[in-house]
């Protein structure tokens, strides 16, 4: 670990000012500290935001929820409104990490956790994300857990979060405060960038930005599922995960929101899938078409080829469960 300066932010301005000057924001530290120990990230200084008043969950005027950036994954998963109205989120959170980690991990930190690509974590390896221009060692290496959608020749990393996948399906909005004290709102889908030629740039946040909260719109009436496929029963990242909210009325699909984890560099949403499903009677053939749309551009890199058929099967199972169409 490289030596670093530590500062505790008493105000948001402290945090954004320090961050603007290059400090890494530390919340739960469950990802940042690991990366610092391995020197994958070597900030000169860190600013601790844990004393800021960002730890509450409040009902918004629109009837949605405002989740403070410092709300822990455990508290969010256990919150009664979340369990009742945003079940998919509670389930996604509980499917992630371990109880100990969830007690420390925060909402803001979870959104910004970095890929688990093994080459990214090992400073002896070339990696365009960690050291731009050095190459992507994963493409022809061990890429079992990496992405098949939205990749580029420069990086095929997958985004590891479960929480963000559920939030994506819930149309979450990220509330950000800049170093000049102004607050702005970014649709979660617009928070993340695809790797393209600059895999080191992962979000649209600017230096000095502090995530203050995540806003969920008013709950929709729909059946909700978070399904996570992984190598062991717990404490493993998703190979494929799906957050889904679906409602069937008069034999036709009237609500559909789907987001995917484990498949792409960001929590993945494709509105064409939902458009295809809307207004149609659920059937195995329809689900296949949905999977076709999801996977048309999918590209495997060897070890992760299996994710493509796995995603198809998992999507079909999720849709059939939610619409009660038997396979």
């Amino acid at each position, binding site marked *: 670990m490289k030596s670093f300066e530590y500062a505790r932010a008493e105000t948001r301005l402290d945090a954004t000012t320090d961050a603007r000057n290059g400090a890494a924001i530390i919340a739960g530290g469950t990802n940042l500290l690991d990366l610092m120990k391995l020197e994958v990230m070597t900030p000169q200084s860190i600013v601790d935001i844990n004393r800021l008043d960002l730890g509450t969950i409040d009902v918004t005027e629109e009837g949605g929820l405002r989740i403070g950036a410092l709300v822990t994954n455990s508290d969010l998963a256990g919150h009664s409104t979340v369990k009742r109205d945003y079940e998919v989120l509670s389930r996604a959170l509980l499917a992630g990490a371990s109880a100990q980690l969830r007690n420390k991990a925060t909402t803001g930190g979870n959104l910004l956790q970095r890929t688990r690509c093994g080459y990214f974590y*090992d400073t*002896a390896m070339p990696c365009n994300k960690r050291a731009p221009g050095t190459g992507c060692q994963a493409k022809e290496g061990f890429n079992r857990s990496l992405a098949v959608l939205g990749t580029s020749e420069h990086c095929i990393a997958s985004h590891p979060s479960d929480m963000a996948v559920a939030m994506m399906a819930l149309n979450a909005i990220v509330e950000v405060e800049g170093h000049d004290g102004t607050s702005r709102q970014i649709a979660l889908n617009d928070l993340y960038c695809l790797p393209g030629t600059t895999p080191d740039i992962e979000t649209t946040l600017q230096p000095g930005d502090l995530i203050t909260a995540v806003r969920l719109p008013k709950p929709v009436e729909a059946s909700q599922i978070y399904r996570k496929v992984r190598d*062991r*029963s717990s404490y493993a990242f998703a190979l494929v995960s799906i957050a889904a909210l679906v409602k069937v009325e008069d034999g036709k699909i009237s609500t559909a929101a789907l987001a995917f984890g484990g498949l792409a560099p960001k929590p993945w949403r494709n509105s064409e899938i939902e458009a295809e499903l809307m207004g149609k009677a659920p059937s195995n053939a329809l689900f296949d078409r949905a999977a076709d749309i999801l996977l048309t551009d999918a590209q495997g890199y060897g070890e992760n080829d299996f994710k493509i058929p*796995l995603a198809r099967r998992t999507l079909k199972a999720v849709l059939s469960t939610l619409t009660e169409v038997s396979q």
Partner: protein
Amino acid sequence: MTAHLKMNESQPPVLDEMAQGVIGTPTPRRDGPLKVTGQATYAAEVGDGTEAVGMLVRATIAKGRVTSIDETATLALPGVLTIITDERMLRNPAQGGANEAPVQGPRDVAYFGQPIALVVAETFEHARHAAQNISVTYEILPDAITDFLDGDAPIERPAAKQIEQGDIESAMRDAAFSVDATYTTPSQNSAAMEPHASIAWWDGEKVTLHSSLQMLKFNRNELADSLGIDPENVRVLAPYVGGGFGSKLGLAPEAVAAALAAKELGRPVRVVMTRPQVFETTMRRSATHQRLRLAANEQGELTAIGHDALVSNLPGEAFSEPVALATHFLYAGKNRSYSHQIARVNLTCAGSMRAPGEAVGMLALENAMDELAHDAGIDPVELRLRNIPEDHPEKDKKFSSHCLADCLTTGAKRFGWEKRNPTPGAVREGEWLIGVGMSSAARGNILHEAKARVILHSDATVSVETDMTDIGTGTYTILAQIAGEMLGLPLDRIEVKLGDTDFPPAAGSGGSWGAGSTGSAVFLACQTLRSEIADLLGTDPAELTIKDGSIISGNVQHELAQLLTRDLSAIGHIEPGKTSDEVEQATFGAHFAEVAVNAVTGETRVRRMLGVFSAGRILNMQTARSQCHGGMIFGIGSALTEELVHDLRDGHIVNHNLAEYHVPVNLDVPQIDAVFLEERDSWANPMQSKGVGELGISGAGAAITNAIFNATGVRVRDYPATLDKVLKGLPEM
């Protein structure tokens, strides 16, 4: 006084005649409360704060030579004290029982991750930062071999391991049923909770090493030889070890590095491996490639067994995964054929990991038996029962005791095996395909030379002293039980001191021989003390009944504490003898597993497991059961998740952390039942016990993959059976 026994003949059931009643009874580990309250200090925790801290520097090439290290720049970093590149540093960890220095010389690089230097600094963080940023130049040799299946790998074929009996080819041709299948298992790591760690300090010419090790009498000589000093000047301490599983049998690189640095700096030096270093620089279990051939007649009686194994290790390493160990004696069959090939590769050193040989060999053998049972339409339990040999099938030897049949039938009954649907893929609960599978378990039994001192104090308390280690298995507890039973004293009057080479040398923990070997030394010492007590009373030791410190001899009661006027002390010394050669000693068992395989995703969840075992006298039912539970959980990992992934471009281990190297977590482990049959083995040792530490893993994973086949009809022959491999065989949706 020394009581010496060489095991040349079978032994009477002495422990059964004792009165205390503590032997065999389920007794919690005495080190348990110390561990959960943090009072048991591990190697990384000892010291008074004055020590310097070292961090190993890893090679980042697969093969070549270090041409220079920029020491000036590194020494200029904050907190850095020195850089050790001494030629005596270890390149490879020592194999179990090496008893001499392993491969030394950190400048020549034989594998990615090999230690090439030690940076010593004031704090762990300083040392780690410097080790991470040290600038090294290499001369890279282009001919590194990282794929053991690659035809370019140099292959060795040890003559003694190429065995032909009869004619397997014609037996296969003439067979009513036959199997000829290839299985592969990946590299693995023991992943013990406590990372390898050492702290060393010198007092003049004498060095003390407090470390995490399994076999101290050998480790002491390994350290002395590595440093080039007299073993008399080396003391090794390892009172608490947080798991070893074979990875701490021999000295690891951090130990010698700590000693060299402490000498140079004239102050204690601590070196703790990070988790990635544990994966990269301590023993891995070799990946294996195995071809199994089985031939059987109409009745399912084996007429031939063939087991061809290809394993890997670094050039020059003597150890090679002894894949076919159990195949030699488990089943009958006249025609037998074995080959054993070692591919020389540039990968992390391969060595012993829990049940070397059986743990991987039985995966293949027991899968092949399942394939044969299926093809022949014979129940898998019945197939095994039909092939239990009377005597050793390859040598002119009797078994010392043999309860496989009983394990199989008892297990089948307890598990409800008769309810099994033999048609694969026939049982479904919603999305889940349900299946059951079984396998035999077998593990050879070993006795090693061991010594222990037992002191019977005049207040009728006892001290047991030996350099034996307790690596989390229960050694502290069972040695107290043995002494308590023999001397008729409750356990709270017995102190057990372990893990110090100043005590008499024991056998160490490994190969499941620890309890039988060191326990026998304690037993023998106690037997001598019983004779001395008898002498004090002028009677024969056979006439003594001692319980709770009261002696009854010829209808007269005496109190031990009053009888003793001084401390009595004896050293027990056991040595293996003819019974190791003239009879075949092994432990046996049967595994049963039920799995649910998700028909959508191919995810496998183990629903329940049962193991029925026979291992001679059980010294402590609770710790023995825990050992078998642990072994069976290892079996879950081997079957479903564990794989050390080498990037074949440079051999480096990609998943060198516990987030990505998947050992089973709580939720992966179902209700596990481990049952022991009542047995005595009079040929094994004077306690008539046998080893249990590795029996539980032997065959366990095969029961699970056999259950996957029963559930789905998918035969995964390439371990671990991750969901992608199962998925390939599942029906379309």
